[in-house]
Every structure is written in C-alpha cells, then in structure tokens.
C-alpha cells in the first residue's frame, strides 16, 4: 500500500518534470543538507518496512513463550528486545512502519484529491459559488474533527480503510484553501484566457491548465500533511482505536510501551524513536521544499 501510494506520488512528480522551475527547485532542494539526509533516512525506513519479513529471522506474530519482555538480545537476533507477548520488537516496529506510512500516504492522497479539486473549482468559478464553498470550509474548520473521527472509529469498528478516508476527509480543508488562493492568482493569466477563447470547457481548463500551475505550494503542504496524518493515526491507536492485533502500528506499540515503561523502557523507546525520526524527516523535507520553491529566493 505504501509503495503504491508512493509510486502514485512519484508519477505525479514525473508529469511536471522538464520545467525549468521544477529543475531549479530540485537543484536547490538537493543542496539542502538536512532535507537530503531526511530523504535518505525516510527511504531506509521505507525499504525496511517493505523488506520487513526478510530483515529478521522472526515472524511478526510468532510468540516465544520463553522470551517474554526481554531486553535487546543479540544472541537470539532480538535487536530491539521482545514485547510483553514474547514477540520480536524489531520486526514489529517495521510492520508498524508499514501501517503508519501506508495510512500517512493514503490519507494524504485522499485529502489531496478532495482539496485540490474543491479549491480549484471554488477559486476558478469565483463569485457566489466561491463564497458559498469557502463558507462551508469555514464552518467545517471550526468542527472538532478529531472527536468525530473517534466516534467514527468507535461506531464502525476499527476499519483501516475507513481510517484512511476519515483522516483524508479531515485534512483536505487547508489544502482547499491553499489551492483556491493559488487559483485566484493563476486564473487571470493570459494562457487561461487563451484556453477560454479556444472554447475549452471549464472542467478541462481546471484540470489541464489551473491545477498543474498551482502544484508548488501543494507539494509543500503534502509533505507536511503526511506526518500530520501519521501522528493522528498514532494518536488514535494510542487510544486503542487504531489497527487490530496481530497487526500493529507505531501508535499501538508506543501505547503498549508506555504501559511497561518502568520495567521495559525499550518497548517505548524504539517505536517512539522511529515515529519521532519519521516526523522529523518529513518536516525537514517540507521546510526544504518550501525554501526550494519560494520565488522570493530565486
């Protein structure tokens, strides 16, 4: 799932390649050391998550009755120790990475799809329609969404697909605002007028001419949304509303570790470290992208 989502993101990036603006930005991004290091670390975590079954001799749900709650033990290849049920923590952290990253990317894609289309339509149509659409966003903004997500998870059970959709539906609001603002500035440009004159339909203008030209800030916001979603998923899992046994996510592991932190601190520290480092990396990449795409710097 994570790979699929990632591949989709890459495909999108591929579409806009070849423009001098993006080449420019890429060069500047690669000169940002923090961002490059972050990308390398994230890539390692991603590869680790995908190759999890082959990186450890232990299956993620195998219970070793004689090794319950053991600290890191290199002789038996329990590099991060074992959890309270005698399962290898290293492999569980990597399996948790699968769920956390998959939720992060998938929910971000959902929010991207809704936010970009909604924002672009609103900004492009303008006038009364724009007013009404943005008023709706204002109203939704002041809803305590997390509480609705919690209710949803309680009501419909801990369904991971529903989690993607619910989190995506929460995160699209800011995306819509950003895209609308950008659209307003793009839609007065000559090439839009030219498209109108050539008789292109509104839908096609939005899809082919407006959206590609507002992608810059959207890309930045996407890299900031992914960690936001990962954090939210962990939050829900921490409350016991996330994925179900034997599957796991970083939030579940942290929650289990927090209960054992006096006797078995490694159960808290390793998953917390992975979550923290991942959030760190995304934030650095987001900052790097923002600097790289900032026209003021050029």
């Amino acid at each position, binding site marked *: 799932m994570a790979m699929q989502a990632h591949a989709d993101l890459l495909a999108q990036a591929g579409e806009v390649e070849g423009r001098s603006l993006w080449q420019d930005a890429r060069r500047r991004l690669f000169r940002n050391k923090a961002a490059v290091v972050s990308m390398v670390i994230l890539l390692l975590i991603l590869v680790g998550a995908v190759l999890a079954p082959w990186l450890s001799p232990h299956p993620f749900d195998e219970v070793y009755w004689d090794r319950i709650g053991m600290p890191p033990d290199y002789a038996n290849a329990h590099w991060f120790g074992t959890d309270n049920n005698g399962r290898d923590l290293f492999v569980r952290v990597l399996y948790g990475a699968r769920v956390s990253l998959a939720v992060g990317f998938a929910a971000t894609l959902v929010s991207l799809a809704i936010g970009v289309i909604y924002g672009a339509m609103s900004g492009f149509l303008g006038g009364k329609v724009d007013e009404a659409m943005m008023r709706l966003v204002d109203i939704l903004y*002041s809803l305590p969404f997390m509480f609705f997500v919690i209710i949803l998870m309680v009501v419909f059970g801990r369904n991971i697909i529903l989690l993607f959709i619910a989190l995506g539906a929460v995160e699209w609001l800011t995306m819509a605002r950003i895209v609308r603002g950008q659209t307003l500035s793009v839609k007065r440009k000559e090439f839009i007028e030219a498209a109108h004159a050539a008789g292109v339909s509104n839908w096609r203008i939005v899809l082919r001419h407006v959206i590609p030209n507002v992608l810059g800030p959207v890309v930045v916001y996407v890299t900031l949304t992914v960690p936001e979603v990962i954090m939210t998923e962990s939050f829900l899992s*921490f409350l016991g509303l996330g994925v179900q046994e034997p599957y796991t996510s970083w939030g579940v592991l942290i929650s289990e570790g927090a209960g054992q932190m006096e006797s078995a601190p490694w159960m808290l520290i390793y998953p917390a470290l992975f979550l923290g480092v991942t959030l760190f990396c995304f934030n650095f990449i987001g900052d790097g992208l923002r600097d790289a795409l900032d026209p003021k710097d050029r």
Partner: protein
Amino acid sequence: MGRHLLRRLAIGLPTLFIVVTLSFYMMRLAPGGPFDQERPIPPEILRNIQEAYHLDEPLWRQYLRYLGGVVRGDFGPSYRTKDFTVNELLAEGAPASFTVGGLAVLLALALGLAAGITAALRQNSWIDYSVMSLAMVGIAIPSFVMAPMLILLFAVHLGWLPAGGWGNGALPFLILPVVSLALPQVARVARLSRGAMIEQLHANYVRTARAKGLREQLVVLRHALPGAMLPVVSYLGPMTAALLTGSVVIETIFSIPGIGRYFVQSALNRDYTVVMGVVIVYAAMIILLNLAVDLVYGLLDPKVRHD
C-alpha cells in the same frame, strides 16, 4: 470590524447546529446501544428503560427533543452513570480540564513568544539555531510520546514529580501534564512568532522608528511586537482545538478526572448523551475562542479595524 464579527457569529450558530446534528446521528448509527450487557435484560424491563429515556420514539422525535434540551442548556441524563445528568458530569470534570488546558495555553504563549522573539532578535546566532532546532523536536514529538518520556525521567528515575493523579490540582501534579500538553504548541508558537518578528523588523515603519532615534527596546516592544503577534493570535483557534484533542490523551495518561477522559470511555460504552455533551462543549469553546481571536485581531491590526 463590526461586519466581520457579525459574519463570525453568523457562522458560529450554524456550526454549532451542525455539530449537534452530526454527533446525534453518528452516535445513533452505531450498532449496539447503551443497555447492551453480557446477560440480556428481560424485554419488558428493556422496554421500560427505553420508554423512560424516550428511546422508543422515532429518531426524529428524539432528535428534536435533544435539540430542544441543548437550546435550554440541558444535555440530558447519562445512560451509563446512573443518577447523573450530563451537565453534572461535565461540571465535575470541567475544573480539572480547564486548569490543565488553560495553563497549557498560557505556557505555550509565554514560552513560545519569548523563544520566538529572542530567536528573531538574534537571527542566525547560536541562540536562534538552538531555539529552532528545539522547536523542530517539539513539533516532531507528539504529546502522547512526550508524556510517558517525561514520566520516565522525572517521576520514575528522578522521583521529583508524581507520575499521575490529580491531588486536587496541587502544583506538583500539574507540572508534567501541562508541560507535555503545551510543548508541541510552544514549538509552533515559537516558529510562527520568529518568522513574523523577522518580517516586522525589516518593515519600513520599524526602520522609520529607528531613524527617528527611538530606543531599541521601544522599537521592538511598541512597533514590531504588535505586528508580530498577528499570526500567533490567529493561530489561537487551531491551537485550542489541538489542546482539547490532546487533553483526551493527557488526561488518560495522567489519570486526571477531566472531561476528555470521559469522552473515549463514554464513546466505547455508547453513552450517547455524554459523548454528544463533550463534543458540543468543545465545539462551543472553539467557536467562542475564534470570536475572541477576531476581536483581538481587530485591536492589533488597523487594516481590519477600519474595514
């Protein structure tokens, strides 16, 4: 300004209405009810209970009844905590929740502004770099990770502070929950205020103030600071929402008898009225705070004031 406020009010009421409607119907969509038990209740008794709580009426009647109650400030009885109304439960949890939440807001603002402005005044110095790196750490570590870590360090290893409990709101019991709730927000406020302050310090009117020979202190406090406050003030709304959400977890971790702790428990128990009560109270607080933010915004920003 007046028009602006009026518009906000006009958004606030429908928002609250949507919150009530949405949470009512979402809770009712749930399979299972508040009176499900391991051993089924005899049908006659169940019918009596449902009749007592009006659960036998058609859904729209129940909805209207509930809406009417909310308008009069009555959130109804709790289904699970016998002999308690939701209002009583909320009133019981409110002091603890508001103490922790309010202190967290104050801490986030005071510490965040101080750090952000210091960093901006010494831009590109080691102070600036260390403040910004720390802020990055604060943003990347969610409060439900920060809280156990702090407990591990200050309660378990050092033994300086209690690991949980409420102690009737005594200071030692407050420190860890407030700090772990506020830290991510301290980091965000610091980043916001640093950026805004740097922008202000390069503004023309600040240069004018300097040119006419004002003391640096006055230039910073009187001229640059109000402008630098704007983004922070407008962040207050989202910040409250984040703190309220975070408080659900913080109250659970530290076993604080607040509103947030009821929320998850009641949702799992299908105690409809308590869940809805909490959501509505939280939503109302966010809306009110946004209104207050708009007022302050108008006072700080002449562009809005004369609009």
